[in-house]
């Protein structure tokens, strides 16, 4: 083992160092061949270091130079003297391969690719490509090409090309060019994926933007999330605003803020929430429970739809069991085995709000096996086998096959009609 030190400001031409290499401040390592320089031991930086060519070593380490300020007193005049320590910076004009840890207190700039086990940089890292198991950067990470890591932890900003990452944790902003982030993505400020991304759990506090066709396990948006095309995610939690410019496929959707879908919304299990959802196309789900504002072209719930608030459906809402809570306004036909209108608000589910108790519940036409119009509720035309109009409820027209109950104080504008067969529902 022969250790080597390149003195401050000098240039050394090397091909191999069997031992450790210590590089003085502003010193340069010049590779004597195209393969680059191989250091079997550690590379130690005393300040700024430059490498012309590729560099392969066991580890890279650097010193910290504390800056200080001192008060000096000259003839009664006080002044502050700042002693700014030099910072460690590594610049490689080729590829950098580090078998163990790459630890530089200030910055690393590599023209080619970085391959390392662990990367720990205080300020900024720049490279054409990065492949490592774990990377921790206090400030910024800029990778023009592929960025592969099991864990990425950056305090400031990440800008990268295509990624293949396990967990991504960024304090400020992250902008990637698609790829896959299989674990958790936690971004404080903004997260942007310019191309299709496969992700695990995405949590965006500020603003998120995903390219169309992105697919993941869970999306939670505290601020605003935009998908520029179709989005597939097992769970979608819209705490703030989620805008999807395409179709959306999910298992479970929870709306606390606002969900806007310019295509259709397909949810295999449940849609619930107290926010508002505007879907230009159709909504298909098993269970629907919303108490805000819901707009869609057509809504189909295989099991039940429990709605309160304002519901606007151009071509109707269909479910096995439809419940429209007290004080709601529903525009569009309701279709179900059992349709109940004006049921007391589900207080456990934020059913009060402006759709409060005491307000009239209004719905349009109903097609059902059994229709119950509760107190303070009014319906348009009702086509059902069995119809019950409770006290102080009303309907414009009722057509039934089996049974009609009209409580005292309830009213029907036209003479009730008993028929053999009911007309078919619109869908």
């Amino acid at each position: 083992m022969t250790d080597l030190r390149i003195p401050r400001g000098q240039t050394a031409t090397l091909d191999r160092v069997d031992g450790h290499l210590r590089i003085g401040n502003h010193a340069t390592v010049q590779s004597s061949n195209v393969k680059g320089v191989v250091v079997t031991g550690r590379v130690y930086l005393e300040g700024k270091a430059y490498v012309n060519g590729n560099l392969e070593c066991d580890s890279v380490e650097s010193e910290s130079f504390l800056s200080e300020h001192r008060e000096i007193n000259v003839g009664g005049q006080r002044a502050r003297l700042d002693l700014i320590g030099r910072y460690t910076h590594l610049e490689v004009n080729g590829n950098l391969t580090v078998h163990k840890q790459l630890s530089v207190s200030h910055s690393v700039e590599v023209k080619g690719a970085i391959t390392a086990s662990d990367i720990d940089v205080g300020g900024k890292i720049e490279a054409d490509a990065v492949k490592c198991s774990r990377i921790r950067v206090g400030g910024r990470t800029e990778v023009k090409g592929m960025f592969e890591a099991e864990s990425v932890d950056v305090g400031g900003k990440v800008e990268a090309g295509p990624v293949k990452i396990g967990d991504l944790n960024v304090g400020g902003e992250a902008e990637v060019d698609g790829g896959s982030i299989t674990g958790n993505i936690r971004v404080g400020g903004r997260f942007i994926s310019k191309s299709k991304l496969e992700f695990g759990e995405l949590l965006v506090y500020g603003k998120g933007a995903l390219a169309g066709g992105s697919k993941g396990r869970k999306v939670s948006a505290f601020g605003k999330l935009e998908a520029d095309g179709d989005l597939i995610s097992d769970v979608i939690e819209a705490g703030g605003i989620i805008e999807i410019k395409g179709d959306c496929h999910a298992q479970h959707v929870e709306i606390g803020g606002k969900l806007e879908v310019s295509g259709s919304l397909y949810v295999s299990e449940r849609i619930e929430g107290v926010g508002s959802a505007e879907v230009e196309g159709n909504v298909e789900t098993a269970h629907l429970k919303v108490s805000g504002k819901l707009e869609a072209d057509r809504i189909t719930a295989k099991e039940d739809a429990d709605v309160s608030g304002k519901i606007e459906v151009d071509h109707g809402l269909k479910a096995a069991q439809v419940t429209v809570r007290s004080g709601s306004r529903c525009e569009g036909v309701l279709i179900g085995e059992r349709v109940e209108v004006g049921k007391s608000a589900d207080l456990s589910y934020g059913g009060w709000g402006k759709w409060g108790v005491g307000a009239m519940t209004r719905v349009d036409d109903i097609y059902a096996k059994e229709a119950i119009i509760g107190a303070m509720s009014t319906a348009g035309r009702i086509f059902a086998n069995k119809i019950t109009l409770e006290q102080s409820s009303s309907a414009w027209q009722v057509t039934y096959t089996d049974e009609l109950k009209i409580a005292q104080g309830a009213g029907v504008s036209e003479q009730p009609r008993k028929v053999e067969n009911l007309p078919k529902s619109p869908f």
Partner: protein
Amino acid sequence: MGDMLMVRSRETKRSRTDLYAQVLEVLIRYPEGGKITRVSYGVGVPVDRLRRILEALNEYGLTRKMTVDEQTLYFSTPRGLEFLDTYWKMKGFLEIFGDKKIK
């Protein structure tokens, strides 16, 4: 050119609260304790200015200063993490409000 300058100045101008959050974001990445130089590189402020910021954060109970092996290290406190969570949530709200103009 004018636009670029505007963007740059807007990017570089950080409020005190932004700086506090950024310092904490860097500190939480050093659970073993952050050295002031490393934190200054991460946040992008000179050490003397960072020292004043850290003093303020210590006073507010958002960070803790400890000397380990004659080395001064800074740590985020649970209150610091609480601040950070609130800060990003508030930023999230502002992201939503930013789209709407008051008529």
